[in-house]
C-alpha cells in the first residue's frame, strides 16, 4: 500500500510536469529560465522548496531527538532572518541585473561583473563540487527513505531466518495467521521465520508470549527482526528511481516544469508534515500529555538547550550558515526566473512563516520521540519510526510522499543548474577554441542534459558506497557556499571590488574547505566552540578586502555599468 501511494504521487508529479511542458517554448531561454515569467506565488514555492531539503523534515526531527529544541534556533529562526535578507539584498538585485544584461547563470553574472574568465574557471569546479555533494545528500536520502518506508513490499518467501530461544514464555502460542510463516522446534529451541518482516510486527510477536513479554522474549524478537530480510525496495533501486523521475521532468520540461513541480512538492511536504504532526500528537494523547511525558523522563533536557547539548558560541556562529542561500547557483537561477522585481516581496516576508510551519511540528515530534525511543535509535530514522509507530500504511505512504517531495524539490533545481552552468559558462564560452563553432539553442539544451546525466551518474555511484553522515556532509557543503557569500555581496554593493580580490577569496575558501574536510565529515566539528564557517568566511572576507585594496581598481566603465546613479538619488 505504501509503495502504491509513493508511485501514485510520482505519477501525479510527472503528469503535472508534462502538463507544464505544454507551455514550453523551444528555446534555451525558456528551458533554463522559464522565459523569466514566474509570478509571486510560484517564486515563493520554488525558492522555499529549493532551500528546504530532506533536512527540513527528516533532519530536523532527528537532530532535535538528539540535541533538543535548540535545533530550531540554530537552523530555523536564524534562517528566517538571514534567508529573507539574502532574497531582499541579493536576490532582487540579481534579478534586476539579470534582466538588464541577460544573465542565465550565476557564473555569467560574475564573469561580467568582474570582467574575468579566470574567476569563472576558478569558481566552476568549486561550485560543481559543492552542488554535487548537495545532490548526493538528496540521492542517498531518497534511497534510505524509500527503503525505510517499504518493508514487506516483497514477500521473499524463500528466505528463512532462525534464532535460538533462550527462554520460551510459559504461555507461548503461535496464532493461526502466523502458522505458515513462523515455527518453533522444541528439540533445537529454534524459532524460524519464513519470508520478510516489517519491524512494526514486533508488537504481534510480543503478544505470542501470552502475557507481558519477558526481557528474554523481547530480546529474541529483536534478534529475529534484525536478522530477517525486510523485503523493502532496495536502497540502490530507490535511489536510482528518484534520480530517474527527477531527470525525466527536468529534461522534458526544463525550468518551467521545475517551477511547477516545486510548487506541487512544497505544498505536499508542508501539508504532510502538519498531518504527520496531528496524527502523532493525537496518538500520544495530545500535545500537552506528550510534553509532560518528556519532562518526566530522563531525556527532559531535550526541552531545553542545557545539559551540554549545544555550545553558546556554536548557537551564535550558526548565523553564518544560512548565508549559503546567497551563493547557491540553483537558487540564483530561480531568482532570474521572476517576472518582476516586486514578485520577490511575497518570498521575502512569507519565507520565515513557511519555515515556522514546517519546522515546529518536526522539532516537537523529535523531542517527544526522545521519551519514546531508545537513545541509540538512528537519528535519520526517528521521523519514519514515529510515523510507522503511530499511523497506518496509508498515512505512512502519504508522509513518505511528503519527504520525497522535499528531497526532489531541491534535486531538480540542482540538476538544471549544473546543466546550465556547464553549457552556458564552459561550452558556449570556450567551445570555439575546441572546434565546436557556434552552439545552437537545441544543442545547448542537449549538452546541458548530457552533463547532468554524467553528474547524476557520479552521485549515484558514490551513493552506492552508502557514504555515512549525510548531516555533516550537508553542513560542510553549506559552509563552502556560505564562505563564498562575501564575493556576491561585494559584487553588488562594493564599487571597488575587483577580480583579483574575488579570485583570492575563492582560492582561500577552496583551500580551507579541503583542509578541514576530513574533520568535518567525522561528525560535529567545532573550532574553539564555534562553527568552522566563522573561520572560513572570516578568511575569505579578509582575502577579498586585502587583495582588492592592494591591486588596481576595476575599470571606470565597468563600475559605471554596475553602479549607475540610483533613481531615488536623482
Amino acid at each position, binding site marked *: 500500500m505504501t509503495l502504491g501511494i509513493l508511485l501514485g504521487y510520482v505519477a501525479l508529479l510527472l503528469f503535472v510536469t508534462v502538463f507544464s511542458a505544454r507551455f514550453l517554448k523551444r528555446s534555451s531561454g525558456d528551458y533554463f529560465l522559464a522565459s523569466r515569467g514566474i509570478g509571486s506565488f510560484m517564486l515563493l514555492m520554488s525558492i522555499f522548496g529549493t532551500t528546504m531539503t530532506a533536512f527540513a523534515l527528516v533532519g530536523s526531527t532527528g537532530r532535535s531527538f538528539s540535541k533538543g529544541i535548540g535545533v530550531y534556533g540554530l537552523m530555523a529562526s536564524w534562517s528566517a532572518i538571514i534567508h529573507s535578507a539574502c532574497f531582499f539584498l541579493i536576490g532582487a538585485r540579481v534579478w534586476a541585473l539579470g*534582466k538588464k544584461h541577460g544573465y542565465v547563470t550565476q557564473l555569467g553574472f560574475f564573469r561580467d561583473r568582474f570582467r574575468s574568465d579566470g574567476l569563472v574557471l576558478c569558481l566552476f569546479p568549486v561550485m560543481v563540487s559543492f552542488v554535487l555533494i548537495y545532490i548526493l545528500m538528496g540521492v542517498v536520502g531518497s534511497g534510505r527513505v524509500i527503503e525505510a518506508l517499504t518493508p514487506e513490499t516483497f514477500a521473499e518467501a524463500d528466505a528463512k531466518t532462525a534464532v535460538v530461544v533462550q527462554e520460551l514464555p510459559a504461555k507461548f502460542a503461535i496464532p493461526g495467521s502466523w502458522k505458515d510463516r513462523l515455527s518453533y522446534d522444541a528439540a533445537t529451541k529454534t524459532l524460524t521465520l519464513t519470508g520478510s518482516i516489517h519491524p512494526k510486527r514486533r508488537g504481534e510477536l510480543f503478544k505470542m508470549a501470552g502475557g507481558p513479554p519477558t526481557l528474554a522474549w523481547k530480546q529474541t524478537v529483536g534478534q529475529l527482526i534484525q536478522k530477517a530480510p525486510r523485503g523493502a525496495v532496495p536502497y540502490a533501486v530507490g535511489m536510482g528511481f528518484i534520480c530517474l523521475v527527477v531527470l525525466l521532468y527536468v529534461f522534458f520540461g526544463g525550468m518551467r516544469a521545475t517551477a511547477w513541480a516545486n510548487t506541487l512538492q512544497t505544498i505536499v511536504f508542508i501539508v504532510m508534515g502538519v498531518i504527520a504532526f496531528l496524527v502523532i500528537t493525537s496518538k500520544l494523547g495530545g*500535545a500537552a500529555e506528550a*510534553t509532560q511525558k518528556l519532562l518526566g523522563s530522563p531525556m527532559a533536557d531535550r526541552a*531545553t538547550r542545557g545539559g551540554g547539548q549545544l555550545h553558546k558560541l556554536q548557537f551564535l556562529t550558526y548565523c553564518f550558515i544560512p548565508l549559503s542561500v546567497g551563493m547557491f547557483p540553483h537558487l540564483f537561477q530561480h531568482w532570474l526566473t521572476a517576472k518582476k522585481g516586486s514578485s*520577490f*516581496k511575497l518570498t521575502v*516576508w512569507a519565507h520565515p512563516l513557511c519555515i515556522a510551519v514546517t519546522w515546529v511540528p518536526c522539532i516537537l515530534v523529535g523531542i517527544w520521540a526522545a521519551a519514546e525511543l531508545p537513545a541509540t535509535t538512528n537519528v535519520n530514522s526517528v521521523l519514519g519510526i514515529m510515523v510507522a509507530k503511530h499511523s497506518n500504511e496509508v498515512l505512512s505512504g502519504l508522509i513518505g510522499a511528503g519527504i520525497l517531495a522535499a528531497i526532489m524539490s531541491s534535486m531538480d533545481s540542482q540538476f538544471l543548474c549544473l546543466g546550465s552552468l556547464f553549457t552556458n559558462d564552459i561550452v558556449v564560452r570556450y567551445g570555439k577554441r575546441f572546434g565546436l563553432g557556434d552552439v545552437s539553442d537545441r544543442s545547448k539544451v542537449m549538452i546541458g542534459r548530457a552533463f547532468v546525466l554524467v553528474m547524476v551518474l557520479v552521485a549515484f555511484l558514490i551513493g552506492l558506497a552508502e557514504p555515512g553522515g549525510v548531516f555533516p556532509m550537508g553542513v560542510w557543503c553549506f559552509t563552502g557556499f556560505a564562505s563564498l557569500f562575501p564575493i556576491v555581496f561585494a559584487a553588488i554593493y562594493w564599487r571597488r571590488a575587483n577580480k583579483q580580490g574575488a579570485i583570492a577569496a575563492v582560492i582561500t575558501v577552496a583551500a580551507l574547505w579541503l583542509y578541514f574536510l576530513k574533520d568535518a565529515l567525522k561528525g560535529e566539528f567545532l573550532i574553539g566552540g564555534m562553527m568552522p564557517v566563522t573561520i572560513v568566511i572570516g578568511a575569505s572576507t579578509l582575502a577579498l578586502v586585502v587583495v582588492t585594496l592592494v591591486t588596481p581598481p576595476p575599470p571606470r566603465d565597468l563600475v559605471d555599468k554596475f553602479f549607475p546613479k540610483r533613481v*531615488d538619488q536623482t
Partner: protein
Amino acid sequence: MRAAVVLLLLALCVIHHDMWWWGEAEPLVFGFIPIGLAWHVLISLAAGAVWWLASRFCWPADLDQLDAE
C-alpha cells in the same frame, strides 16, 4: 522607515541569543511548547513581520521602475 527596519532586524539578531532561557523548559506556552522553543517561533514570526515592513516601505525604487518598463 529604513532605519527603523534595520534597527528591528538588529534587535532580532540580538534577542536570538536568548541565554536567559538556555536551561529552562518551563513555562510551557499553550501548555505544550517549551519556552525556549516558543521564543524562537516568535522570532520567526517577528522576522516575517519585519520583512513585510521592509518589502512594503523600503523596497528599492529602481526595482519598481524596472517593473514599469
